[in-house]
């Protein structure tokens, strides 16, 4: 916005003023017009020559400043991590260095600006005096009369002032562009997941989910999923277990199309989700993560999120009761109108998960993904929440990721992933009673207090 202001009042105005000055003086006192043209060109040459260093200095300052600002903000946001790690002194010293760099970058910029300013002032001063000198000579020779002398004085001072002003505006413009360039770089980045040309709407009739030879990696040299195959019948509830970092959560992100597969296909009711719009895929899938984040809105609005129209508080209360949200909401002074804070910080992890479960219940999507959805519950809460989850899953095809094996022991089928492949599959009982000691049984035996070791 400032940039447009700078362009308008600084640059456009000076261009018009200089052109008018040259036109008028060219008519009444052409030698003065020649002086103005020559020295204006000299001024522009100086500006062009110095604009590189000025822009570079502005960019360096912007970088150094945002680095210091970003570090300060990061440390404050994660202050408990810093305190627990006894990192106050180190962080303070680091910020001191960054601020020092920022100050030095600004001072370097100031030096570049001052040198440029000296050149500007010199050229403009020369313009004023040269114009006056030529004007006086013309007047003494009787070539121009009093009114034209006034015009010479007027334009010499006007053009000089405007040229200096224009440089300030160019400098402000450079600073603005320096600040905007990072945002422009960010918004120019192509999205990782885009709708294919002619993408269709995903239409879910039954809710069958199939992974067909899916491969995926975060780093090309480290494949995470290789030829991963899995089929869920409509209404089937399948648990995924495996060591940490084995790709369980990645599978859930791929179904939501938060990332696209590197190879293979994910099919919902025989439709490849890569050929469907992202929005239609996400409308068909309910997702409860291990660390749900809430919008800085009321509990009722968060539960209602994803549904169109105004909040129906009766419906919200109904699902909240089923998800055991009502129990803690009743204790809050503002009840369902309690604002949950940024990212839901006013709620505990378990409360956020229950709100997310209520949200998923209300959404009623045919495919349900639970990614450690009971990880933040204590044993008593977990029992209640599992009841709610069973109700939630009853009408959906469900893919359940859990470290806590008690969460998935009752599911129709459990698959064990290791090294990006399905290494075992069966019910809880089948996997435990398998003739050989498999990964699942080993995980089960290693489980202590209901948790798996990573």
């Amino acid at each position, binding site marked *: *916005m400032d*940039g*447009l*202001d700078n362009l*308008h*009042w600084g640059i*456009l*105005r000076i261009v*018009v*003023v200089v052109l*008018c*000055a040259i*036109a*008028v003086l060219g008519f009444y006192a052409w030698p003065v017009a020649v002086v103005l043209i020559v020295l204006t060109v000299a001024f522009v040459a100086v500006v062009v020559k110095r604009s590189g260093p000025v*822009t570079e200095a502005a*960019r360096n300052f912007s*970088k150094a400043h*945002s*680095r210091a*600002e*970003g*570090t300060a903000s*990061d440390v404050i946001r994660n202050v408990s991590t810093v305190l627990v790690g006894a990192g106050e002194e180190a962080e303070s010293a680091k910020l001191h260095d960054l601020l020092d760099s920022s100050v030095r970058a600004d001072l370097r910029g100031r030096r570049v600006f001052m040198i440029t300013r000296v050149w500007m002032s010199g050229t403009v001063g020369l313009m004023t005096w040269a114009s006056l000198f030529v004007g006086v000579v013309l007047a003494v020779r009787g070539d121009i*009369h*009093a*009114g*034209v*002398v*006034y*015009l010479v004085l*007027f*334009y010499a001072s*006007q053009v000089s002032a405007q040229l200096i002003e224009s440089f300030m505006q160019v400098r402000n413009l450079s600073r603005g*562009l*320096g600040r*905007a*360039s*990072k*945002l*422009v*770089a*960010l*918004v*120019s*980045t192509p*999205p*990782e*997941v*885009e709708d294919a040309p002619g993408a269709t709407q995903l239409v879910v009739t039954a809710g069958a989910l199939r992974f067909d030879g899916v491969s995926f990696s*975060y*780093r090309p040299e480290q494949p995470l999923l290789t030829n991963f195959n899995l089929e869920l019948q409509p209404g089937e509830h399948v648990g995924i277990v495996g060591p940490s970092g084995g790709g369980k959560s990645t599978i859930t992100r791929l179904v939501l199309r*938060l*990332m696209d597969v590197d190879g293979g296909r994910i099919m919902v009711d025989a439709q490849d989700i890569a050929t469907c719009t992202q929005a239609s895929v996400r409308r068909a899938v309910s997702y409860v993560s291990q660390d749900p984040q809430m919008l800085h809105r009321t509990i009722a609005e968060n539960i209602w999120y994803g549904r169109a129209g105004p909040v129906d508080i009766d419906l919200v209360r109904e699902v909240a009761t089923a998800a055991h949200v009502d129990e803690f909401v009743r204790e809050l002074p503002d009840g369902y109108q309690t604002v949950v804070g940024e990212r839901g910080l006013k709620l505990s992890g378990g409360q956020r998960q229950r709100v997310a479960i209520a949200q998923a219940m209300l959404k009623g999507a045919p495919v349900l993904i639970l990614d450690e959805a009971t990880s933040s519950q204590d044993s008593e809460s977990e029992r209640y929440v599992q009841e709610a989850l069973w109700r939630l899953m009853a009408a959906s095809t469900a893919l359940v990721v859990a470290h806590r094996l008690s969460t998935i022991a009752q599911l129709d089928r459990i698959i064990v992933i290791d090294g990006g492949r399905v290494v075992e599959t069966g019910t809880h009982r089948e996997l435990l009673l398998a003739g050989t000691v498999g990964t699942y049984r080993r995980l089960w035996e290693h489980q202590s207090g209901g948790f798996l070791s990573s």
Partner: protein
Amino acid sequence: MDEFEGESASTRDTLRYCVQLARPYGRFLLAGAGFLVLGVIITDVATPLVFAEVLDRIAVLSPHTRLWPRFGALIVAYGVLIVVGQVFFRFSGWLQWEGSLRSFANGIHSSFERLLALGTDGTSTTPQVRSRLR
């Protein structure tokens, strides 16, 4: 530290992006520029020329000349030109400001949509790398 450094777009790309944001409101900006040019022509060309004419007439003024018939029209013209020039500048400023404000709002909205599409909160300028590295 890399999280805060990120990449910067070139000046040309940044300008191109700004022009793209301002394009839907080009009529405000062009009208503002038009009024600015008119304002400059009136304030910095016509007005000084009238004043110069006044000075020329003063320079050749003979005693006992009646001033109003000699200068009245010029003084009125001078006043009118100053007022009209200022009106044009204020129109120019208003239109330019409205165009800038709307372009700015457009920029915020389009950046917001872009960040949503990228799935980043803007603290990292390399969303792909971030998501790929988890």
